[in-house]
């Protein structure tokens, strides 16, 4: 989802595991870079490779399974818990994902994702279960994320491309209206905060007088 995002239709990568922490998403030993780029190759590093060796991919891990691909990562409850490392959001984004779907996100991860135009979509446990079951039955099952309408739709495999098609299931999701505007228009929080610097300075003066 680059700036100005509104809708995405894609097949999904299912990661049916609860409590996926940011140490799994990107282990600490890969946090030594001083830029934001290139973290994708180490996404889920220790679940992807045997003995930390890129020559030995673990066949049973979903990112190594050519059956699954897409711009949408679907994960079980409490995704992104643990460390505040924004590298987790950078790694997911860098690996080609624009959306993460789960029934529950950890707070800091959610903020970090939104600040990087990676959309966290929270849905019910039931709908999440339905998505996992549909993808298991047919890996070409897709999802349509519509940020403007705040809806997530399950698509039959044939409907992923071309655009359009009937629904198999759908749910609406919540997003803070301010953040939605930012994502739709490509604004970031720093631009906004810099624009109210006078208010901040006034506040500091008042505060020091108390």
């Amino acid at each position, binding site marked *: 989802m680059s700036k100005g995002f509104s809708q995405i239709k894609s097949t999904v990568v299912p990661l049916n595991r609860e409590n996926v922490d940011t140490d799994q998403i990107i282990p600490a030993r890969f*946090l030594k870079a001083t830029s934001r780029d290139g973290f994708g190759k180490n996404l889920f590093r220790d679940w992807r490779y045997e003995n930390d060796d890129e020559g030995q991919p673990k066949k049973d891990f979903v990112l190594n399974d050519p059956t699954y691909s897409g711009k949408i990562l679907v994960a079980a409850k409490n995704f992104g818990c643990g460390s505040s490392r924004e590298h987790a959001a950078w790694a997911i984004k860098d690996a080609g994902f624009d959306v993460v779907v789960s029934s529950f996100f950890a707070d800091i991860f959610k903020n970090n994702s939104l600040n990087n135009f990676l959309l966290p979509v929270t849905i019910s446990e039931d709908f999440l279960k339905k998505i996992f079951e549909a993808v298991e039955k047919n890996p070409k099952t897709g999802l349509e994320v519509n940020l403007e309408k705040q809806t997530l739709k399950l698509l039959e495999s044939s409907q992923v491309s071309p655009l359009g098609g009937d629904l198999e299931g759908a749910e609406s999701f919540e997003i803070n209206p301010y953040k939605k505007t930012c994502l739709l228009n490509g604004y970031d929080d*720093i631009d906004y*905060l810099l624009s*109210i610097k006078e208010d*901040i300075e006034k506040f500091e003066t008042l505060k020091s007088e108390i």
Partner: protein
Amino acid sequence: MSRTLFDKIWNKHVIKQIDGGPFVLYIDKHFIHEVTSPQAFTGLNKRGIKVFRPKQVVATADHNVPTINQHLPIKEELSRLQVEALKKNCAEQGIELYGLGHPFQGIVHVIGPELGITQPGLTIVCGDSHTSTHGAFGSIAFGIGTSEVEMVLATQCLLQSKPKQMRINIEGELNKGVLSKDIILYIISKISASGATGYFVEYAGSAIRSLSMEARMTICNMSIEMGARGGMIAPDETTFNYLKGRKFAPQGEASEKALAGWRQLYSDKDAVFDKEININAADIEPMITYGTNPGMGVSVNGHIPSLNEVNEKEKNSFEKSLKYMGLQPGANMKGKKVDFVFIGSCTNSRIEDLRQVAGFVKGKKKSAAVEVWVVPGSKQVEKQAIEEGINKIFEEAGFQLRQPGCSACLGMNEDKIPAGKYCISTSNRNFEGRQGPNARTFLASPLTAALAAITGEVGDVRDFINN
């Protein structure tokens, strides 16, 4: 109107609310370290702006530093470059840096309090989820991501939604041998690793009031491990006495004025919380974790849940977790052998933690089967440990007293636990690979870790101290 401690501080720091959106929250103190700040400085440079309030920012190097031979250049190039980038960024922006070699260097959540920078009533952030530690002083303190670090560097403000509020009351007297680490591991085991997501937590009750500042910091530190954005404890005489005379705490007349304000920082009698949990202190026993998130904990006398005790929906994750740990459902934790003992991290590396360990191991020798690392949280803790002769006790016991840093808590620097080995650790996370690829972690209190260092296995420290 009755207000909570959180409301009182929050309201004083809100500049405005965006229509239907988040609040603009003013940040008093910003701690930074080498791992989560470089990209934020790059962002500022790209925008062509300077740090807005450099005097409100304090930096240290902790995550990526070695804990032996700190006087030598850092061996690993990427780690060295990251620490050097912090030095350069701080010099360019006029930020105070307590880097390697500085007498104040240490883990960011240890040095803030010990220098008196952390004070009641402040808003404090850091690009580190354990920033919740500082809430022990009655401040709003929470971890942020790097984009947010950039926001605070640029404007001293953050855009934040107001969290829900939870109070956890712990009443009564703690059992002998039970430390504050056991309290927090007990709470997380009861409410799960996501049980407080979306909440800011206030810890209250007579058991909390009886704790030292160090012990309170351990509890607030692990708030994030149940998903809470932060944890806090109303300041009291224990807090005020701790701060007295610390380098950056208010002195003289300023101290009187500050104290008058700090005494107003408590939740009003009728204040309403979104959720309240009551715990009886007497129910808490020394705790140990067996799984791969901090909610997977039991009493050291307890057993790992058997499969029929686990919720159907969680069975898959539970089995994967035990497979990683090499443990069987239903097994007892007592008697489980360990290979490493790590005493350190922002959770338990303060002087009180080291004193507790030293008090227990004095005159004893470590088990031949284990390697024991004690890593002080700061240069000041290290200095004090040496002054008190604690280093000698460790030396005689066969423990390694290393130099300050995050060390083996996070498998980032040189200190890692080898694959497949078991480490009883006073740190905060037992995630897969947290202490090194395929390393296995048992989280515990400093006393339970000290006991394992001597016996080589998990045990109940009360079997030893009551005799």
